[in-house]
């Protein structure tokens, strides 16, 4: 048996937390049986309290308590043990014991009956108990154990249904919100003072839309400057010259050509494809055969945007080579082809203005054909389309 000094030493080490886990467990087991050990430990702990009390006092920051409250909010109440206390205190244990005894008795009776008749019962517990009564009674009697389990199951099911109803209501609300957002977006797109942007993709030979490649930096710049002009941020007229009967405005190395009929250029008047002849290519050698090809999926895309009643389309060397003659054909709102007079491409990117209201279908779909004729007699017809609205 350890001597007194050894106990003192152990008590001190216990209070200061110097014992190993195993030593601590062993010490606590001895302490549970020894009032002397408990007293030693109690006195040393009180010494620690006195030492703590004598320390310079600091005031904890106020947010610590709110953090504690948050932490407690994520935890259950600590009195798991007191549930049993309440259970025993309020007589539920006696009731449970009675119920258990009754069930065991019923099962025993059933087993006794089966032993007499030699039958084997492979049925749920409540049917086993019910087998003990007459057939008539079995029909009218409810199961002996409508049980807490069934009740809990029903409650769980009811809770699940309630949760599902909540999710359905949430989804319905989300659908309504999205519908409203869509309606608002459509309404905004129909406003004339709002810019709409398109990226016309080349129609592949198979009829599918090709993936739109990225615009060249010069074309990006041309589109941005064009937008600036439309919004009034940049001057609209700087250097003007007439080329092939069109007024060409050059701004910062970008040519702007307005092909709308209202501009007053006779050559700009659109004509029905059936009556109007395509514009003659510039410098096309006489008698030289034209080689026509439809753009494949690697063909460039055409940026465009709608500003009010104007559709402004950007062309550059990737669409039509310099010095080629370009003819723009669109499908009007009556699905009839409209051909606009040709223009001669220069070195600069060219922004062409077309009448949007005339060429867009009721769905807003737009299809444009660009035919370029080069001096070598090669023509390149590219068809672009864009669905309604961006």
């Amino acid at each position, binding site marked *: 048996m350890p001597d007194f000094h050894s106990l003192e030493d152990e008590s*001190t080490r216990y*209070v200061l937390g110097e014992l190993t886990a195993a030593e601590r467990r062993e010490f606590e087991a001895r302490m549970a049986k020894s009032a002397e050990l408990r007293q030693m430990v109690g006195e040393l702990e009180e010494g620690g309290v006195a030492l703590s009390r004598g*320390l310079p006092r600091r005031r904890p920051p106020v947010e610590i308590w709110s953090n504690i409250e948050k932490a407690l909010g994520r935890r259950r109440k600590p009195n798991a043990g007191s549930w049993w206390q309440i259970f025993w205190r309020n007589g539920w244990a006696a009731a449970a014991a009675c119920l258990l005894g009754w069930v065991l008795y019923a099962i025993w009776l059933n087993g006794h009956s089966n032993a007499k008749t030699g039958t084997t019962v492979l049925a749920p517990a409540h049917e086993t108990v019910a087998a003990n009564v007459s057939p008539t009674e079995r029909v009218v009697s409810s199961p002996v154990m409508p049980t807490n389990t069934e009740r809990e199951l029903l409650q769980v099911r009811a809770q699940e249904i309630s949760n599902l109803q909540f999710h359905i209501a949430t989804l319905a609300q989300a659908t309504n919100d999205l519908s409203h957002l869509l309606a608002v977006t459509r309404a905004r797109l129909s406003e004339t003072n709002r810019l709409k942007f398109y990226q016309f993709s080349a129609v592949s030979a198979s009829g599918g839309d090709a993936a739109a490649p990225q615009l060249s930096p010069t074309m990006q710049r041309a589109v941005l400057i064009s937008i600036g002009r439309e919004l009034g941020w940049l001057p609209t007229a700087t250097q003007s010259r007439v080329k092939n009967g069109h007024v060409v405005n050059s701004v910062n190395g970008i040519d702007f050509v307005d092909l709308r009929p209202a501009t007053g250029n006779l050559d700009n008047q659109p004509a029905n494809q059936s009556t109007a002849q395509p514009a003659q290519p510039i410098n096309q050698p006489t008698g030289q055969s034209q080689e026509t090809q439809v753009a494949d999926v690697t063909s460039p895309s055409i940026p465009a945007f709608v500003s009010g009643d104007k559709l402004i389309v950007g062309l550059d060397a990737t669409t039509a080579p310099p010095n080629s003659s370009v003819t723009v054909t669109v499908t009007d709102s009556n699905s009839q082809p409209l051909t606009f007079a040709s223009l001669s491409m220069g070195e600069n990117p060219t922004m062409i203005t077309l009448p949007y209201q005339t060429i867009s279908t009721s769905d807003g779909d737009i299809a444009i054909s660009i035919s370029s004729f080069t001096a070598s007699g090669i023509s390149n017809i590219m068809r672009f389309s864009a669905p309604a609205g961006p």
Partner: protein
Amino acid sequence: MKVTTGLRNDWRVEPVDHQTTRCEESGDLLSPEAREDARLLAVVAEGEQGGLAALYRRRSGLIYSLLVRMLVNEMEAQEVMQDVFVTIWRRAHQFDLERSSPMAWMIMIARGLAMDRLRARSRRKAGHEAYEREIASLELEIKGRQQIDRDELADVCASALNQLPDEQAHAVQLAFIRGWTHEEIAQATGEPLGTIKARIRRGLLALRKTMKDYHA
């Protein structure tokens, strides 16, 4: 004597009578404030968060001061402070007045959690220089801090600590507050292990006697 039975669920602080109750193992008479702490712990054990709030109002300053003193780092002390009261919330039903006073129970929880932090830090070199540094920092903290929220008992305990012989006060503080082991202190001071053990034990008991006398 378990205090978890026969207590109201209402956590609000009731006026306490000034009769004293004996904490059997430490042999101390329980002061009215200790009885109130015990009552609040019983309320917390019943799952009443308001009881914990009341306990926090009463004891957070003292516990926080200990944690700052032990860990030196205020941020760490705040984290541990939170853990301490969450632990009190979880373990309140285990509190047994027959084993310890409420303050001792709470202080030992706080110290245990702070010790875990100290142990998690890189292992210190418990040499003579480290010992000198620790002693210097303990004295600096005592002189440098403004004394706030002090009561009479706190002054009595501080006075008792100052009246201990220096070697004893240093050993007690290093062991209880900074978590130095007996062996580490003995090695740093070059004194026999038995001497260090006796100093720490006697120092703690002397401080305890001061508090006991005060309550008496």
